[in-house]
């Protein structure tokens, strides 16, 4: 049933007022040759009870597995209160706050969110969110080309150590506008970008430099030197960061002598469950002077006609519903509900709670790496300092090992061969604060058993 409340009597009364014989007559402007009468390939309706049974059965089939995969999506503890409040109907079933007087809850929450993201990233302004981390980097790249008035080339440098999926999305989204994106190679010893490797671009017209922190391998980049290089070459410094890491690592606003210009990333680690890849949210913050080049919604504080403080969408002249073909982006909605969760999550954790999450995740990953590299066939790959992920090299192809581990109830990491064949049989592992020492031992024992099995070679 389509959840419609109409009784037969009401339908009759309503049709009488309209002056139609039956509901079918209301579709009389659709050319008859376009009308369909059945959707036979769609399954028949099921009750809530039946669909509940179907979904529980499928969820149970997928099961819960001890997970050591990170690679852009991170398992963190989320306080129970976060999603209980987030799914209140007043947040869940409202729309974009166009009618400000009837949307002060959502608007004030976004203003608080903007403040928190500015604090974390060390920037002046935050938008109300974008779709996800990957598309946020694409929007940041387009924004940098618009904002950098000294550059005419539409050319950006992107660290080869940025999440490969992000790099694909940046290429796919910016291609239509003719951006030229060049990748900087990764140092195979340290696992990050060597600032000296940028020398060959000196004196060239570069609109922006895209710098991840930490990078896809969990390795910490030389962000001060990279930011300063960008500014010395009239390029904007675009930071792509894990927001939880910023509880521990220097805020992009303080990178180098002048700080990064645009900061973006995926907000998932801030209270959003893994949920198979989404919905997450992208964030984007920047320096004050670039605010008019920002894509997406922005909430401002103002006063009402009695002088009482209140909140409203602002600088809408940047956006598609006003500016149409000359807007800063085609983005319409943001990821409001995820921002709701993240704002409540950050309030419940505070700076100290986030710092503890970051610290214990680093600690757990270190323990995991220690336990796994005790196995002869496993070694670490990079010598650079890392956050809560690390790259290990096996003495054999990674894929069959991961498959065997999965059969033992463990997701042992992410196989890097597809994106970085030059690293050999490399595996990216992650342990967050959610893993106990005993989980790590269970993982190490399973690796040991699988690696000892001659069939997995």
């Amino acid at each position, binding site marked *: 049933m389509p959840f*419609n*409340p*109409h009784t037969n009597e009401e*339908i009759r009364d309503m049709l009488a*007022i309209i002056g139609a014989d039956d509901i079918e007559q209301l*579709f009389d*402007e659709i050319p008859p040759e*376009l009308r369909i009468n059945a959707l036979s390939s769609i*399954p028949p*309706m099921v009750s*809530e009870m039946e669909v509940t049974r179907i*979904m529980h059965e*499928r*969820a149970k089939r997928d099961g819960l*597995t001890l*997970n050591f995969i990170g*690679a852009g*999506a991170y398992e963190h503890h989320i306080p129970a*209160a976060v999603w209980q409040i987030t799914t209140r109907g*007043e*947040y*869940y079933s409202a729309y*974009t706050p166009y*009618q400000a*007087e*009837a949307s*002060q*809850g959502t608007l004030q*929450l976004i203003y608080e969110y*903007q*403040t928190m993201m500015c604090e974390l990233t060390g920037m002046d302004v*935050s938008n109300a969110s974008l*779709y996800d981390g990957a598309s946020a980097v694409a929007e940041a790249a387009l924004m940098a080309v618009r904002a950098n008035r000294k550059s005419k080339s539409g050319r950006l440098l992107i660290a080869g150590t940025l999440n490969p999926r992000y790099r694909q999305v940046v290429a796919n*989204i910016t291609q239509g506008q003719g951006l030229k994106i060049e990748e900087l190679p990764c140092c195979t010893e340290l696992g990050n970008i060597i600032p000296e490797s940028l020398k060959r671009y000196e004196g060239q017209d570069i609109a922006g430099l895209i710098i991840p922190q930490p990078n896809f391998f969990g390795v910490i980049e030389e*962000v001060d030197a990279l930011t300063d290089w960008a500014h010395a070459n009239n390029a904007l410094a675009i930071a792509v960061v894990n927001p939880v890491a910023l509880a521990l690592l*220097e805020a992009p606003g303080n990178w180098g002598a002048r700080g990064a210009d645009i900061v973006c990333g995926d907000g998932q680690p801030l209270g959003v469950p893994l949920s*198979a*890849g989404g*919905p997450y949210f992208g964030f984007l913050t920047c320096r004050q002077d670039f605010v008019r080049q920002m894509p997406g919604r922005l*909430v401002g*504080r*103002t006063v*009402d006609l009695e002088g009482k403080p209140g909140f409203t969408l602002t600088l809408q002249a940047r*956006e*598609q*519903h006003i500016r*149409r073909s000359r*807007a800063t*982006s085609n*983005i*319409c909605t943001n*990821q*409001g*509900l995820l921002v709701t969760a993240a704002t409540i999550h950050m309030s419940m*954790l505070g700076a*100290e*709670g986030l710092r503890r999450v970051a610290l214990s995740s*680093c*600690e757990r990953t*270190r323990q995991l790496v220690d336990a796994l590299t005790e196995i002869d066939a496993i070694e670490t790959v990079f010598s650079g300092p890392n956050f809560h992920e690390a790259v290990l090299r096996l003495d054999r192809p990674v894929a069959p090992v991961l498959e065997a581990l999965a059969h033992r109830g463990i997701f042992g990491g992410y196989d890097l061969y597809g994106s970085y064949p030059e690293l050999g049989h490399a595996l990216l592992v992650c342990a967050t604060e959610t893993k106990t020492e005993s989980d790590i031992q269970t993982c190490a024992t399973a690796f040991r058993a699988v690696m000892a099995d001659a069939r997995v070679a």
Partner: protein
Amino acid sequence: MTEPLIFEHSRPGRRAVAQAPLGEAGISVPDRFRRRNTPHLPEVTELQALRHYTRLSQLNYSIDTHFYPLGSCTMKYNPRACNTLAMLPEFLARHPLAPVSHGQGFLECLFELQEILKAVTGLHEVTLAPMAGAQGEFAGVAMIRAYHDARGDTERDEILVPDAAHGTNPATATMCGCKAVEIPTLSNGDVDFDALQSALGPKTAGIMLTNPSTLGVFERRILEISKSVHEAGGLLYYDGANLNAILGKARPGDMGFDCIHLNLHKTFSTPHGGGGPGCGAVGVNERLSPFIPTPLVERGENGFQWITADHRPQSIGRLSAFMGNAGVLLRAYVYARMLGREGMPRVAEFATLNANYLARRLSDAGFTLAFPERRASHEFIVTLKSEAREMGVTAMDFAKALLDRGFHAPTTYFPLLVPECLLIEPTETESKEALDGFVDAMVDIRNSAMHDAAAVKAAPVTTPVRRLDEVRAARKLDVRWQAGNE
């Protein structure tokens, strides 16, 4: 009724209990990478945060609390079962890069949803990956460009867009490196077919159409339009914003559209969430199939698996890091199963019944419909031009006065070509008495305006704040709290 900022509840050293334990040992991050200052995040207890955000929620109008006839947004009831079942622990804990062998239940839901959407749109293939309507539009126009490029037909960079279209349409054309060419609308609400024909030519990449249009009427000459555009070498893109009006009654694929996006947060009732997450699932016919964005789900010999750009070398590729808004897709799937083949046409039937009933009642009450000679689709437009002229009260004044009477306002001042317009979409889940109540409120506002226009122009008075100074918001930009700036 206002609530202080969360930062004003903050006291140094205050803690919530849900925080993680401190790591036992030091970490290996060298000092020079360490953060020097502490970010000013709130320091509050769990109860304080919970109370604050509960109170904030109470300042919102929402579908769960109010009739919300926001035109073009399809604010229908979001069944709670969809949320509960999408949030089963196994689905929430699933890592996007976990092996497909351990995600067959999840993938089966996605695969079946793709099949259901193929059936309702009449298209050859569907991907669920685009994360919002605007990203679905991007995918559509990018595919159209890729199609022409693959044929060596590289001069086609014009996208035709009716002047009544959503702003996302022309903005999308620009994002894809195309030029948006506006096509005028006739006074009967149909696209000006003659103007359209003269705009077609060797530069035409395609056209973006919403049908029923944003004017709340069905584009009656759609078959002629698609024939002409195809003959000119262009392709047709269907903006699925208004699919609710024809679900199970007519299919964009049969109308000649080559690609389409569906707003699952409209037609398939996933929550709007205060402005997202959405989902802009994309359907294509065989012509555009090679270019479809990835990933998709297919049924292989060993179960369900991903189709990636490796399998589709001409694909426009991925538009998100993983699989789009997966949790939204599970909600849409549950909803689609509860509707089933019987329920889907009933969505269109009752959405259309409600819209035509409400339109007629408002018309009978003396309000002016923008297209009185046309059948309303799932939404319709009232123009308050004469009220503005005679009483000095605008569409915005009516919108604000509706808030005081317990209704969320309809969409105002869109489409831009109808003066003083309210775009009203009641949806199928509203009762006759809710619609009657809305008519009473509109009549009451007009009566008030006749006696005392100033009172209507002063609305709203019952909301947490009164009309806000938007000019000040833009001029004295205050977009973040800072300690000491109260």
